[in-house]
């Protein structure tokens, strides 16, 4: 278990009665949900449970059909993705979605968009303010690259980076917008055990060093149990459990959702280990 900081009562994100349907299929079903500010929270659930859809609803990629979303005291449902990014939520994608033919540093520079002001005319004329902003953007980009462990790889085309580096770069790009809340969709998917451990430590640093609230979707139970302070379990778009890691580990509903009724009893231990 992670050393828990003092639990703050502030809820940075609150969803009430949130529902998302895809022509008949209810992907997220009347979900009530909150994330404590400054925590590392996890969302788990079997394949197709609606976890990614949940992220897409929060970030404005999908518009929710019912319910409301409150982030940092403001309603954000109905806003467009760029408005939501500007209000302080950043994300990564389950299937990495970098700007493939751009270099690593350029990816991060695009990530800084919400804070940039220069215009095309300024760039053509080479105005001093524009140049300064470009230089600052690049410098901050290099710092972020260093933070995510991609020092010296800034000029590589992101397509040619290794898989793990691509995941790191995507997190770096998300961080570039200086978010208050970051949503990571399966950040360790496809990584080997060593990389997984590194990434776990890295995610903790996001919260501890940068003070960002982290929500991650994760299938690797060791990672989840290791770093989460709050876990939400989804199944068929519904919340079936919520709480501290140890509460979740022993929850019969959760074990059942993952392994089916028959195996529930025997598998309780393996999930806990």
């Amino acid at each position, binding site marked *: 278990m992670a050393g828990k900081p003092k639990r703050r009562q502030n809820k940075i994100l609150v969803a009430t009665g949130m529902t998302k349907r895809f022509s008949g299929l209810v992907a997220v079903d009347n979900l009530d949900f909150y994330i404590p500010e400054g925590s590392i929270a996890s969302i788990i659930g079997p394949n197709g449970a609606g976890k990614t859809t949940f992220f897409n609803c929060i*970030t*404005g*990629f999908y518009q929710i059909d019912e319910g409301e979303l409150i982030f940092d005291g403001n309603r954000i449902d109905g806003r*467009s*993705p*760029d408005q939501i*990014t*500007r209000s302080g939520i950043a*994300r990564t*994608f389950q299937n990495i*979605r*970098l*700007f*493939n*033919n*751009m270099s690593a540093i*350029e990816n991060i*520079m*695009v*990530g800084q*968009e*919400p804070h*940039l002001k*220069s*215009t*095309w005319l300024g*760039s*053509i004329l*080479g105005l001093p303010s*524009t140049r300064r*902003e*470009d230089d600052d*953007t690049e410098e901050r980009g290099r710092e972020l690259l260093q933070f995510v462990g991609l020092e010296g790889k800034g000029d590589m*085309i992101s*397509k*040619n980076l290794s898989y793990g580096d691509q995941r790191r770069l995507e997190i770096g*790009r998300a961080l570039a*917008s200086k978010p208050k809340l970051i949503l990571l969709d399966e950040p360790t998917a496809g990584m080997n055990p060593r990389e997984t451990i590194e990434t776990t430590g890295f995610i903790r640093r996001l919260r501890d060093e940068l003070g960002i609230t982290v929500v991650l979707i994760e299938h690797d139970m060791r990672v989840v149990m290791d770093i989460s302070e709050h876990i939400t379990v989804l199944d068929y778009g519904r919340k079936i459990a919520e709480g501290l890691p140890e509460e979740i580990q022993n929850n019969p509903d959760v074990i059942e959702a993952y392994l089916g009724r028959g195996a529930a009893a025997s598998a309780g231990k393996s999930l806990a280990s």
Partner: protein
Amino acid sequence: MDLSQSRTRQAIITLGLLSGALILFTGAVGMIAAFHEREVVNDFITLGQLVLLITPFIFGYTAANRLGMTGESPTSVIGGGIIIGLLTTLPTTLLLLFNSDEFRFLLDWSLRLAPFVVATAIAWRLHRQNVETFTLIGSWLLAAVLIGIVTFSLALIFEVKGELRSVLVNINRDWVEVVTFDNRKDLMRGIFVFSLASAVAGFVGSLCYYVPRTPRRAMFYGLSVTLLVGAFGETVRLVLQENLERDTLNQLFRRDTLRQNAALGLLVVSTVIGYLWAAFGDRARQGFQNLGGQQRQTTQMIGTVLFVAVLLMLPWLIGRTLSDVAVTIGLFVLMGLGLNIAIGLAGLLDLGYVTNYAVGAYILAVMTSIGPLGLMKGTFSFWMVIPIALLAAMFAGFIFAVPVLRMRGDYLAIATLGFGEIIGKLAISDWLKPLIGGAQGVQAIPKPIFLGTELRNPEQLYYIVLVACLVTLFVSIRLNNSRTGRQWMAIREDEDVATAMGIDTARAKLLAFTLSAATGGVAGAIFAAKVGSVFPNSFTVFISINVLSLIIVGGIASNPGIVVGAVVLIGLPELLREFSDFRFLLYGALLIMMMINRPQGLIPTKIVTHEMRAGVKAKVAAGD
């Protein structure tokens, strides 16, 4: 072993017949005969004959490469080259025989026998697959009848018309003359010479595989240079005319063709240079790379200065006719640089680029014309209207972009294509006739006047285009490395994610369309001033397609690529006017070949090369 042999045989036969089909096709469309009109080396070889020989040579070399890699013995590699040379002549030889009086009966007989032979072959195939007898007979009859209908009607047509030529118009005397190497009277001799020459070409091609890399590259380089100079003799002479004495020139050229001695000299010199380049070029490049930052910058500076100096002196170097071509190329470079903002940077496939060109041209025409349609009758000069044309084109780009902002990819392409057509129709319409003259267009557009001199010659107009291109180049490089450029690229790569990053994609796309349109307007205005009149039929979809193609051929998002693309796709056809019948045929063939063999373009950007290399490495790693 057996497998490898049958595969070898198959490869040779496929390549040989492909090469033969190429010769047959180029002959049947009349290209070979047309090319025969142009001599490459005086009294030695024509362009038509060159095509006949270079084809088996290339295919022989390709086959040798392929077979050699798989470890075939030299005998079978070289034998393969010879066979390919012979197969190359086969289809053409058959056609020659069918076309001659003595052997006409061969055609008649083959047309009559074909249905039975083919039907039997099909039936035999089916028989081997254990098909019932009844079905077998049925399919034999069906095949025979179906094929018979075709071949018998062909036979009938030939019988009635008397000659093949009446059906295949280009299978005529001229063609026979070329493919028999001037032995039209003695057909057998002609076929023998043709086959022998082709076999030798295939043989030499396959032999080249065994020449070590450096001399081989030198040889190819020397040959290409000589043959290109020969093929473009007229152009080369025009260039040299500006700088050489008439007597010297006449020693090198007889009218527009290279003399034999000159060709030989050129071959030797260019091979030697090619050898030096192949042997030491790598080392030179290495040396350049090893230079310290300071020295390297100096070298690059010197290179740039030299390049600009050549650009500035170009009209003196190449003379009037070619300056005219250079102006046309420049106009397309201008448009290419503009369209590249939309396509290369922002990934917006705009097929209606001609709109901007037309807007620029008509604005200039109407505002400066001193004819009946001129609005201002001389109050506005060329220089004052250029910015107006630019703004008008930007405005048009903006207006047309608004409705298509939400479209992506193919849909966007089709919509913009439609806009391009609308502009063409508007220009020719009765509705706008009082303003822009309908089909009669606008005439009497004065030439630009600079410091009291009228810029009427292409040599002078060249500088206007040059300045416009350089300014555009500067702007596009600045934009490329700016926040705006990165926004565009992000949209090109993944529009949804770009939105999520906080980019206002609608705004960025509008800006891309608008800025991209600007240079089209300037190009149109310069074009109008150059020609002195504007007609609606100058503004067809082919302009859009030309600009798009030159970007693709040069290498998408690559500025040097755009220049090379414009030279190849716009310049060469201007120099080869006599072959304009085949312009789009060759154009299409070139595009297809590019897409298959070099999809990254002639001068790709670093990123694309990276990507392709990575692909190759991955293939190699996977043991492919």
